């Protein structure tokens, strides 16, 4: 041990490497994030039960009512109404579902496909590896928002297409991770031993390389989820994502934009708040997950 390691003597280093039971303000944040996310997931699961009104019910006489606590507000519409008289509170609740479904679907697809490609590239190397990495580099050279909207322009906006585009956007980071792991492990003695014993490539990859990857993939996935939801709501905002009548927060913002200038700030603020709360909670939990699983991961 040198002077440089001597900032903390040997056995002590292990103790302070992980968060312990001591309650810190950082932990409070994690708890709050968890509760917020739980709330959002609940909205996604049982929107009809939680929402006081059907989200698409129009009542022109009740259009652009401010939130209930303000002067012209109505207690029947907690957060006010939009330009077609639809209850904002109910719409915000209903919007959770599509964002989470699209987000998780895209995450799952990009994760599975990305890891699979990366494992193959890293394990087999050769031309497969070269081409995969070049493809990744080329894709990354195109600013991702432009790429996303260009693809949507060709294949048309729909929920499925949005999931597809988001998945295409996200596979690279998993592929790089899996490839790195496969590359570094394939030369290790225990892998070569298994090979010598006649184990098939499938078994080696699935049983020995993949498990080592899992915690890193989980951390990366949680960090990526926020970006996916952001991109989805951005696409919806541009009219190139989730289409009405499906209620999506992004579209609500686009819809309400014109009325903002007329002073109807609530139409835009509450859906935006919902998106921010979702993304922020995910980010906080993702950071916490990384601390717990492996603080040494430089991700």
């Amino acid at each position, binding site marked *: 041990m040198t002077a*440089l*390691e*001597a900032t903390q003597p040997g*056995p002590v280093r292990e103790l302070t490497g992980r968060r312990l039971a001591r309650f810190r303000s950082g932990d409070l944040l994690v708890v709050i994030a968890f509760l917020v996310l739980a709330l959002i997931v609940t909205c996604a699961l049982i929107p009809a039960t939680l929402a006081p009104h059907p989200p698409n019910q129009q009542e022109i006489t009740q259009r652009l009512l401010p939130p209930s606590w303000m002067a012209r507000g109505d207690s029947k519409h907690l957060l006010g109404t939009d330009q077609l008289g639809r209850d904002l509170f109910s719409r915000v609740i209903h919007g959770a579902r599509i964002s989470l479904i699209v987000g998780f679907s895209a995450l799952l697809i990009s994760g599975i496909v990305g890891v699979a490609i990366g494992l193959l590239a890293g394990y087999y190397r050769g031309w497969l590896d070269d081409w995969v990495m070049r493809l990744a580099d080329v894709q990354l050279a195109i600013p991702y928002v432009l790429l996303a909207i260009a693809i949507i322009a060709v294949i048309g906006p729909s929920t499925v297409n949005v999931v597809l585009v988001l998945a295409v956007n996200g596979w690279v980071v998993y592929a790089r991770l899996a490839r790195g792991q496969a590359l570094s492990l394939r030369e290790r003695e225990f892998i070569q031993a298994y090979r010598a014993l006649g184990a098939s490539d499938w078994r080696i990859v699935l049983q020995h390389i993949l498990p080592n990857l899992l915690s890193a993939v989980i951390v990366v996935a949680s960090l990526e989820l926020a970006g996916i939801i952001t991109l989805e709501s951005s696409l919806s905002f541009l009219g190139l994502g989730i289409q009405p009548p499906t209620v999506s927060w992004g579209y609500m913002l686009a819809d309400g934009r014109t009325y903002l200038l007329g002073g109807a700030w609530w139409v835009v603020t509450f859906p935006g708040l919902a998106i921010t709360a979702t993304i922020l909670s995910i980010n906080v939990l993702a950071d916490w997950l990384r601390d717990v699983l492996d603080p040494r991961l430089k991700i």
Partner: protein
Amino acid sequence: MHEPLLLQVEDLRVEFPTPKGSVRAADGVSFRVWPGEILGLVGESGCGKSVTTLALLRLVRLPGRISSGRILFKGSDVLMLPEREMRLLRGGEMAMIFQNPMTALDPVFTVGDQIAEVFQAHPNLRTGDVRTAAAAILERVRIPNAKAQVNAYPHQFSGGMAQRVMIGMGVAGRPSLLIADEPTTALDVSVQAQILDLLRAIRTELHTAIIFITHDLAITAQLCDRIVVMYAGQVVESSSTRDLFRAPRHPYTRGLLDSMPRLGQKRVRLEQIPGQPPDLGALPMGCRFAPRCPRAEARCRAEEPILAPSGDAREVRCHFPLEAP
């Protein structure tokens, strides 16, 4: 040993807070260094040797702190110095070199620049042009083509050369005391010998005392005048090199010697000290070495021994020190 003591460390304690309470990485460490002598500081990883020397320069990193003790350097207590004077001391009268020169040298500045910093930080080293002075230092440590190498970057040197550069930086301030923290551990054996030569030359030419930290007892035999052995944050034995090798008093020292391969040895297997050093956060009662000591008795497990004089300029921390053979 006619001159006054250069360094006297008295009962030094360095603590680190942990979730389970305070841990003493250095627990009552005491030793002396005479001017111009080479002192070996030996022990396993985690025994506190590095922390002790960091404390000498007051560079113990937060959250660690020096909780008690005195460090008398040329008569004045280092721990009482204002920070401004401490800075003059560092790199000046007292300097330190590190194990891995590749990481201890800043990769984005030239070696000349970094050596020049020593001169710039110590105005009493009247030098004139710092570049020339830096080149002179490189020549001193036998770097070929010194004038050109002043503008080279650390990564352009081999391990051995880089270590010389670091030694050069260490002696640029003409220190009375040079702390060398495992300077040869990261080097090839052939290069090691050259570095040891260099250190000896420094001691002779500059009358610099050297504290040589290592976990390898064998090297101390070649280089050191005296040796201090540490275990679990305490000094367990100190003695002249010759006496230590001929007749170790502490069972731990005996164990270290036995695990060293030696020329002419008939034994095929090396003896290892069984067990592990104790967890500093959960120290056993009594002697810290007792759990691994082949000679441990009931008293050892109950009562912690103190560091006591044991013969001619020797000290040992043991209830039942080994007898002379």
